[in-house]
């Protein structure tokens, strides 16, 4: 993969060099970690890029480089984009953080937007979405739909982002169904359709009748459909892969953010910022609910969406107990961003131990 990325990057860089004339347009560059055909993470970022093109038409020109591996290789790609007249560059993977900051120092006039990192500078902003808000909604739906009271959760890596999702989901699940439990399987990959499918099979064989995933391929949803259980999609609407099993999906929607940031550069009002948007800002969206879900459950889910948007509901509303039964978030309190960003413990109702704990 690394080599593939390198070649693709080199090829794209050549293409860039050739097309670096039109000077009055704002050139917007994108660096992707995966292929745009992954139908998940990178695909959604590319949809955001197309939204920029659609909104601004002739005023902008966009370029993307896909399958760029994290690390030194990405620095070269980012530098290439910066030196070929791009005024705004989006780098969309955590591992692009240091290369982005490094290149940004050399090109103070170019604006950089890094997804999911924490290092900022005068010309480097960061942004990410509160996907865990979507987990709350899917938890409510799953709690109502499960019959076996066992939920299977396919997790990628034990980082706060993923743990936060498992916890938000479990809290909502047990709010409507206190008997339900969550079985977590770590596959240690973001993307391996075969392995994700195997994990889904293993969980279903062990009694799970709703499958959640924090990995990027539609394989788990597809297996769920084949086995006649439910699934919740990830990153993009996966309905077409499993029309019967697909309850809903947590969709990443970067469109409005990308358009707003591009507009800010065009207007000359762009400033360094750190955005962590959720359902309210539209960065997180729920895919259409499966018609097999009873009306009252859909109403419950939609109400929860509205309540999260209005601030009436918080995914981590105290009292929240950890696996040992100890109250971690007291009654009347909610988890603050600091706690959310460093979450490394399971709430009550998750089976098994968090790796490395």
């Amino acid at each position, binding site marked *: 993969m690394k080599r593939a990325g390198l070649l693709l990057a080199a090829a794209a860089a050549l293409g860039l060099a050739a097309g670096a004339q039109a000077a009055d347009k704002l050139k917007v560059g994108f660096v992707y970690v995966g292929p745009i055909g992954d139908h998940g993470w990178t695909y959604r970022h590319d949809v955001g890029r197309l939204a920029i093109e659609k909104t601004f038409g002739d005023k902008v020109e966009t370029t993307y480089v896909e399958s760029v591996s994290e690390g030194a290789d990405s620095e070269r790609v980012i530098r290439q984009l910066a030196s070929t007249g791009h005024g705004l560059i989006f780098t969309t993977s955590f591992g692009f953080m240091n290369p982005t900051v490094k290149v940004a120092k050399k090109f103070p006039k170019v604006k950089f937007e890094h997804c999911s990192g924490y290092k900022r500078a005068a010309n480097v902003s960061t942004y990410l979405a509160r996907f865990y808000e979507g987990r709350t909604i899917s938890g409510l739906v799953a709690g109502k739909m499960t019959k076996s009271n066992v939920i299977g959760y396919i997790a990628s890596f034990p980082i706060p982002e993923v743990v936060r999702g498992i916890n938000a989901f479990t809290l909502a699940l047990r709010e409507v169904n206190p008997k339900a439990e969550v079985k977590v399987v770590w596959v240690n990959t973001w993307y391996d359709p075969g392995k994700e499918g*195997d994990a889904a099979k293993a969980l279903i064989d062990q009694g799970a009748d709703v499958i959640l995933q924090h990995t990027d391929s539609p394989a788990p949803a597809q297996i769920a459909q084949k086995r006649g259980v439910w699934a919740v999609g990830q990153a993009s609407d996966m309905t077409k892969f499993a029309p019967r099993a697909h309850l809903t999906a947590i969709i990443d929607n970067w469109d409005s953010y990308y358009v707003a940031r591009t507009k800010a550069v065009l207007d000359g009002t762009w400033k360094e910022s750190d955005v962590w948007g959720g359902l309210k800002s539209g960065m997180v969206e729920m895919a259409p609910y499966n018609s097999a879900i009873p009306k009252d459950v859909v109403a419950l889910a939609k109400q929860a969406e509205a309540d999260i948007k209005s601030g009436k509901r918080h995914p981590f509303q105290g009292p929240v107990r950890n696996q040992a039964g100890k109250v971690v978030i007291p009654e009347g309190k909610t988890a603050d961003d600091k706690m959310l960003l460093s979450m490394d413990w399971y709430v009550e109702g998750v089976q098994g131990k968090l790796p490395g704990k």
Partner: protein
Amino acid sequence: MDTAAAVIVSMMAAATPLLYAALGELVTEKSGVLNLGVEGMMITGAVTAFATATITGSSAIGIVAGAAAAMALSLIFAVLTLSLVANQVATGLALTIFGIGLSALIGQGYVGTPLDALPKLDIPGISDIAFVGPVVFGHDFLIYFSFVMVGVVAWFLYKTRAGLVLRAVGESHDAAHAIGYPVIGIRYLAVAFGGAMAGVGGAYLSVAYTPMWIENMTAGRGWIALALVVFATWRPGRVLLGAYLFGGVTILQLHGQGFGLGIASQILSMLPYLATILVLVLISSDRALIRLNAPADIGKIFRPAS
């Protein structure tokens, strides 16, 4: 289906793509050619099989097309390394990179297209017997065919004259050439067979295992197949064993986590690879064994003396 049967069934499915690709590569390597492009051929087979099955509505035609496409790719490798005498390692790596890119291009229009999975054998009454039913009589034909192919490859290599000639070419191409065997021609056939088998392995992923097309869906299985050939010390029976060991540990570790086994998932994920290294060490300690099975002229360039 009880859990034990379910585990075995998923294990067999996980092992099958590896088994096909590794068997093909085994024959290629026995003829003295090292083709590192297995991953690229598998993914090309996967996308072609999926696209063809979608268009024609027939999984069988899809699988044949997948094999043919991967074989065509392997023939590019053969022309470059055998006729034009390019370096096999570099060409094989290039073939993998090329295959991944090519498959993404071909597959653009097929992401998200639904496809019915390959039908499973279903004998009324028999396939429903507890345990034995699903484990012995509940698979798609490619799984049964993979066993047939293990037998065919073993029989061909060790019981037929043609197999003997192929091995002779792999052991010493100069000697085989001196006797009058068409070294290049035999290697062309071996490479083509390896390509076709890798294609079937890839096709298994896209039409039976997870019936869909998505970029890079082989996710490194071609490299595991390459490791398996060494793991098996170039013996078909041991390729079968190795593929099932790999498939088995992968599935078992997922089940183990679900049951709340207190072992770190990373360690469980490492197990198949640790097993490979362990077996490699054990086998390598017996030098005679390696010398008996490894083709002596593997990867060496053959220029017929004119």
